[in-house]
């Protein structure tokens, strides 16, 4: 019975433990609130398959594809290396100054390439970390346990360690959480004390982006330009939101995020049901009666808003709870005023 978890101690019949008094001055290092936090954390299970991540999972490639790509990349790299040494040799042969110059440029190129790759790797790792944090928070909030969430709060504190804007909130959280709070309560406190302020800022980003796309598509003369604008603005929005929540994605990372979000939008309809799209479109049709361009702008704006909200959902280290789910209503009413501004 050494690994008895907190929950098990409520069941009497099999292992009845009579009330007992233990001496406070007994040399027992475990008898501290901090230790009690750590004690329960081993028992919980990580639920990686839950939620949005699973929905967005890409189909598994067969072993041949990575092998082929790896081989190709190696060949290209080897060829490039040969070319580079060849280039260096030729430039040194023509003039030593040119040789040094080419060598320096070559070193810079290789160095920056390595740095970019490392940055991407770090950003992808951060995204994965957020995924695992969210899964952990989710299982903690459901499990009805006690004691493990303090460790989670510490992990989250480490994750946001460098953020000056979150330091007061994290400090206040340390004061409010006490040993009597259950795991679900600690998660709820993190949600409302630390993350709700971030939500407000992310929400403003989404609103700005959706207005930008709405106005830009309404004013742009060609459809091709529309696509370019929407794509660029959405990518920028996703990066803004992700950076706000601490994901800091690189170029490749934000494309990855975007792809996952599109999958989510397609599969699950993250924020609203399909019915809402129809309502959004109908709401747009009023304006469309005045101008097709304006109607299109509104719909593009709403799509941007949906992508932004999907990004919020995917980048938040604690999943949205039932009472603070972001909704499109405010953005919708905000967008309704766009035609007036443009006209």
């Amino acid at each position, binding site marked *: *019975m050494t690994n008895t978890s907190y929950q098990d101690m409520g069941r009497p019949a099999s292992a*009845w433990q009579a*009330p007992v008094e*233990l001496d406070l001055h007994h040399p027992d290092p*475990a008898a501290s609130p901090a230790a009690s936090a750590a004690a329960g954390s081993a028992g919980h299970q990580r639920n990686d398959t839950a939620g949005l991540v699973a929905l967005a999972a890409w189909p598994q490639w067969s072993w041949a594809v990575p092998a082929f790509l790896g081989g190709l990349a190696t060949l290209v790299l080897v060829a490039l290396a040969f070319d580079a040494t060849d280039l260096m040799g030729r430039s040194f042969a023509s003039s030593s100054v040119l040789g040094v110059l080419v060598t320096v440029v070559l070193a810079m190129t290789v160095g920056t390439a390595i740095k970019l790759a490392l940055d991407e790797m770090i950003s992808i790792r951060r995204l994965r970390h957020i995924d695992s944090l969210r899964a952990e928070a989710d299982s903690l909030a459901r499990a009805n346990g006690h004691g493990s969430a303090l460790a989670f709060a510490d992990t989250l504190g480490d994750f946001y360690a460098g953020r000056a804007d979150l330091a007061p909130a994290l400090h206040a959280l340390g004061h409010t959480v006490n040993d009597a709070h*259950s795991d679900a309560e600690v998660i709820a*406190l993190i949600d409302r004390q630390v993350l709700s302020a971030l939500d407000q800022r992310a929400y403003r980003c989404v609103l700005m982006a959706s207005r930008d796309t709405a106005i830009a598509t309404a004013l742009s003369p060609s459809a091709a330009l529309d696509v370019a604008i929407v794509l660029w603005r959405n990518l920028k929005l996703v990066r803004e939101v992700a950076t706000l929540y601490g994901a800091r994605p690189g170029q490749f990372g934000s494309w990855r995020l975007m792809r996952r979000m599109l999958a989510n939008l397609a599969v699950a309809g993250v924020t609203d049901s399909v019915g809402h799209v129809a309502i959004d479109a109908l709401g747009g049709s009023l304006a469309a009666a005045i101008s097709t361009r304006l109607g299109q702008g509104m719909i593009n704006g709403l799509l941007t808003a949906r992508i932004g909200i999907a990004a919020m959902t995917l980048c938040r280290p604690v999943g949205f709870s039932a009472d603070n789910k972001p909704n499109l209503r405010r953005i919708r009413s905000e967008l309704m005023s766009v035609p007036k501004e443009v006209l």
Partner: protein
Amino acid sequence: MKFLKWNQLAHVGEQALGQALGHVNVLAGRVMEGTLRLGVTGLRRSGKTVFVTSLIDNLIRGGRLPFMDVIAANRFLAARLRAGPDRTSPRFSYEKYLAALTASPPHWPAATTGVSQLRLALRFLPTSPLRRSIQPMATLNLDVIDYPGEWLMDLPMLNQSYRDWSTHTLELTEHQPRRQLGARWLHWLSTVTPDLRPDESLAREGAALYTDYLHACRRSQSNLSLVQPGRFIEPGELAGTPLLTFCPLPPGNGEPRAHSLWGLMNERFEAYKSMVVRRFFVEHFARLDRQIVLVDVLGMLNAGPAALYDMRMALTACLEAFHHGRGGWLSRLTGHQIDRVLFAATKADHVAASQHTNMRNLLDMLVSEARNAIRFEGATVDTLALAAVKCTETVTTEHQGRKLACIQGTPLGRQRATVLFPGSIPDGPDLFPENVSQPYRFLDFEPPAGVGRDGRGLPNIRLDQALNFLLGDHLA
């Protein structure tokens, strides 16, 4: 010269107008203030006084209520004490109780002996834009009253006649442990018949024996709750009056003569009902908007199955007296209704925090009848495990190779803090296992030294969630 006079006159007029407008403004503010009467209901020793003290202290300081939406959203401005709306009843001496809790060494306030009340004005920023345009900051007056829990047990008597009450009380006395506790009174009953001459000294004798029996019920190991009438135990200002000289008599067959011992007792019972119970109810309970029912689950587990059964019956009976229902604009016209009721298992700090779920489930089970009845009337009901003043810390220790979630605190009457495993609350209906003689021994604790010195309010467990449920919608 003339011009100057006119100027002065205009100035005076302006001043008067300004003052009048100021008055109108203040008056409008008063009219717009909402009032909410919170009924803190609980049997004896369920912790009403400490709950009210902690509620007031925490709302005034506001530092330990993170789950109150109005505080989490930074809309809460401040709270202030005001005089109660009823000028005749005494003020709840919050300062005295707080001083007791924060003294060194700290101690619990003494048992309540009379009614007292207090009004707390809560200032906050309203959410709705319409309301904010009229009133940039809103005020909610929260009225709370405190009273001896014994008096609550009088409420079921309101719907009973003397005959019903006598029958009911005598039926109760037939079972142990009451039968043994009331042996002397029962013996006296066997010597009298209801048809006797109305003799004052006989009535006094009966009442005295009955009062002794009630005191015995209260003091007994089983800690019985259903003790009626409450003023016999806690007479307040009525000590020694003829109102308190009656006791149940075995109802004979047919109608007893009017001029008899029965007639005398009947008359006094009715007088007690109308002059004491109904007055108490109308003055304090008839206009409640919200209700919190405090239940000392742990004390009942300590006392055993008889106490638990008794408490359950007592609670169901006295909750029937309140007007529950769904609030709405119509209820403003037709009279007050309680539209939210919270059942709270108090003293949650006496067990490890991991036990709170089981504690709440146990409370759910105990109050299921009362809760269903209230739900049927349309009111919203919730249950919670809370502690108005948190006296212990949950710690984990190793004991004989097992990890135990223990609590650390100073048990009542001791000087030194200790770590103890207080026992666990079962999560099923099988509360009292056959083979264990006294399965529960939950200790009471002293308030921790230096409590509330940090100025953030008394430490508590889930007081914020309770308040959010009870007041949240009025602070929106």
